């Protein structure tokens, strides 16, 4: 039951975030039609600008260590309130 309700809430969050534009255009993963391949393609496009063969690009991938367990709950709730996310969804979190 927890998994089912989690998926429903995830759908609601996703719908709300996309509709209100809460997520950056440069954010991939956990969003529809924004796969890892799309992210890599955009990185290649940024590193390899068309018509400019003299440029050199650098890339620095920075993974966040123990990302999910390190989310401070109070700070997350505050961020959700600041983005005016529905109170029921905040309480569910």
């Amino acid at each position, binding site marked *: 039951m927890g*998994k089912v309700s*989690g*998926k429903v*809430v*995830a759908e609601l*969050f*996703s719908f709300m*975030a996309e509709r209100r534009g*809460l*997520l*950056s255009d*440069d*954010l*991939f*993963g*956990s969003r529809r039609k924004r796969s*890892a*391949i799309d*992210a*890599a*393609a*955009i*990185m*290649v496009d*940024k*590193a*390899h*600008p068309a018509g*400019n*063969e*003299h*440029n*050199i*690009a*650098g*890339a*620095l*991938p*920075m*993974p*966040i*260590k*123990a*990302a*999910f*367990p*390190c*989310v*401070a*709950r109070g*700070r*997350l709730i505050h*961020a*959700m309130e600041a*983005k005016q*996310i529905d109170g029921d969804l905040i309480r569910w*979190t």
Partner: protein
Amino acid sequence: MEMVIESNVLQSHPVGAGVLLGSAVSPILFPIHTAGLMNWVDERVQGVGDLSFVADLGLVPTREDVNQVVRKLEACAAESIDLADRRDLQFDTAKTEAALFAPRKGHKMHLRQKLTTNIMGGDGLVRFNKDATWWLGIWMDAHLLFKEHQNRCMKKARTAEAQLHVLTRLHGTVPEQVRAFQVACVQPVERYGSKLS
């Protein structure tokens, strides 16, 4: 949090941080928590392309001079780490490798000296990988030709094919099923990222 091991309920402990691992909601909650990280870097370091994949941040400055690119990368790393610290997050600099890309092959010798140096990333050094850098399952080489990526994918696909061959020989699977397994297990490995090259 309360652990139960073989019907024995252990002492409960309050959990003040973290979103659930394996939950469908966590990959959406995490970007809400880190919202503003890319804007923070953009405002402080000009001319840097950045993108993020859930908990992976990618920074791509472009310049005509290698030293300028390296300085931009250092500035980006410093700013990202600064904001992450304020949000009780840490970047895994031990696993991080920076890369330099040059469209022209003539750049290769010019870059070679820099490829052996390191840039500062928080409390440690981030080294450059002169062969290919891995990000989101894609191996990116210095000229973005993806030959290294293709070779690695083909090697993994051949291994999967060999394992499938052993399984089907042992269990006498019918040809239609072998074909279905091949399509499901081997082809996606072989073709991952093929659109990029």
